[in-house]
């Protein structure tokens, strides 16, 4: 029922991309997104698309999983495209009643759509190929220097990994409670907005109670095992760069330079 949310879900398989250090993938996604905002022509986007296609190919994740993540932003995408299409001033191409579609509008709308789609798909690639734990480990390591500014980096990373860990558990719990209430005749699907919001009460109350109970149990279990925060804590599997990671960084650099150079050229 609730299982089709891919953004932030790991697809387990063996591939080159899966084996990369999470820091490579995080920086890679960062720079990929930055590159998307540097382009001034379509050649840049073409390079970006090819690069992403290559990465997806290497990751061995079926393409339909990437597209699943897109579903959640279809609405946003439509609004963006709509506004850009109709509200950009310039030379008109078609005019329908009071609405004008301009050449500039078409260009802007398609760039926007491309940019948004690539952005979502590229971050999906990262989350589909990296386990949540690896991801937070990578982030913790990357944010390490911020400790100098008294930022509780370890605690933030721990909170994030716990939150991520709880998502599937809570989804499962939601599914279970939903089924139990449907078995008692609850109706979550029909009725107007107000009625549907009211129908959520039998779902949300038990869900919150169980979330609090779980959080409480977890805190207890962590304390029982002497967890006391990040100071002086070592890792069982520390992150260490390997040869493939340096190669990936090199590939990334080449992509970035080439795509931005081509993307900002005027023909």
């Amino acid at each position, binding site marked *: 029922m609730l*299982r089709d949310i891919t953004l932030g879900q790991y*697809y*387990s*398989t063996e591939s080159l991309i899966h084996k990369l250090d999470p820091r490579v993938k995080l920086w890679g996604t960062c720079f990929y997104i930055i590159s998307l905002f540097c382009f001034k022509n379509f050649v840049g986007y073409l390079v970006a698309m090819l690069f992403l296609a290559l990465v997806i190919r290497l990751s061995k994740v079926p393409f339909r999983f990437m597209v699943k993540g897109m579903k959640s932003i279809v609405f946003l995408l439509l609004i963006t495209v709509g506004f850009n299409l109709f509200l950009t001033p310039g030379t008109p191409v078609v005019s329908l009643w009071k609405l004008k579609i301009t050449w500039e509008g078409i260009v802007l709308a398609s760039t926007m759509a491309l940019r948004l789609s690539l952005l979502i798909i590229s971050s999906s690639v990262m989350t589909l190929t990296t386990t949540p734990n690896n991801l937070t480990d990578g982030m913790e390591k990357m944010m390490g220097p911020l400790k100098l500014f008294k930022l509780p980096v370890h605690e933030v990373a721990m909170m994030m990994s716990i939150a991520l860990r709880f998502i599937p558990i809570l989804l499962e*719990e939601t599914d*279970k*409670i939903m*089924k*139990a*209430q*449907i*078995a*008692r*005749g*609850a*109706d979550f699907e029909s009725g107007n907005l107000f009625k549907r919001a009211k129908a959520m*009460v*039998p779902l949300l*109350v*038990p869900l919150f*109670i*169980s979330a609090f109970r779980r959080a409480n149990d977890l805190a207890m279990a962590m304390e029982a095992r002497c967890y006391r925060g990040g100071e002086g804590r070592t890792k069982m599997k520390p992150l260490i760069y390997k040869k493939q990671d340096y190669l990936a960084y090199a590939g990334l650099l080449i992509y970035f330079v080439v795509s931005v150079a081509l993307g900002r050229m005027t023909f």
Partner: protein
Amino acid sequence: MSIILDHINYIYGEDTTTPVHALKDICLQIQDGEFVGIIGHTGSGKSTLMQHLNGLVRATGGHIYYNGEDIYDRDYDMKKLRSKVGLVFQYPEHQLFEIDVFSDVCFGPKNLGLDRKETELRAYDALRKVGLPNELFYQSPFELSGGQKRRVAIAGVLAMKPEVLILDEPTAGLDPKGRDEILQQVKKLQTETGMTILLVSHSMEDVAEYVDRIIVMNDGSVLLEGAPRDVFSHYEELEAVGLAAPQVTYILNEFRKNGLDVDTSAITIGEAAQEIARALHR
């Protein structure tokens, strides 16, 4: 009037990398007014099977007929089915949400569209049937003990007056006294109202005394099926799949092996004691 399962298959997560074939080609028939026990070890597919019976989970293959009608027919009224086949989930206390016990039990009948008077009558009746003391009716359900919560949850389903009541491990985590009380009340329901009852359990002892028929599940399929005595006579097969027959079956079989001529089909302690006494006096 019966429930018929015709070659039911179910696969969890069909489009993921790790599909789980939870039910494999299940064919069963459940008669009206029967008390059926379903046993099987953890992960054998009991809960999954039970969720098929009221249409909460749709089989990947096969058909289910309730009173002769295919519940997967496009114009079959699922809501009606759910009011006829009441399902009490494993750990049902996690579904309580109202401010007091009584209103929580009213939730089911209210969803059936009954008027207030009928709803309250049914809720009161259901709470009495599960043996909850009157002074707890207006307490918050979250302040009750585990066993009391369990009763409230069962009452919540009973109040819908189902024709078939499915209980998924109603006794898990209860003490022996609470367990016996709940099972006795369920048995009483069956004899008094003629309700069909399906009871899921891990424990043979639980079901041996009460049920008419036992279905043993193993790894998604039906391993054995029949009256308790017949099923327990296959105690070696049961052991091979990680289940056990009641203790008395073992004791009687030991007696027999050592030369005492006892009938090994007794399933309760009382019956076994009588049987041993009879054999010794001869």
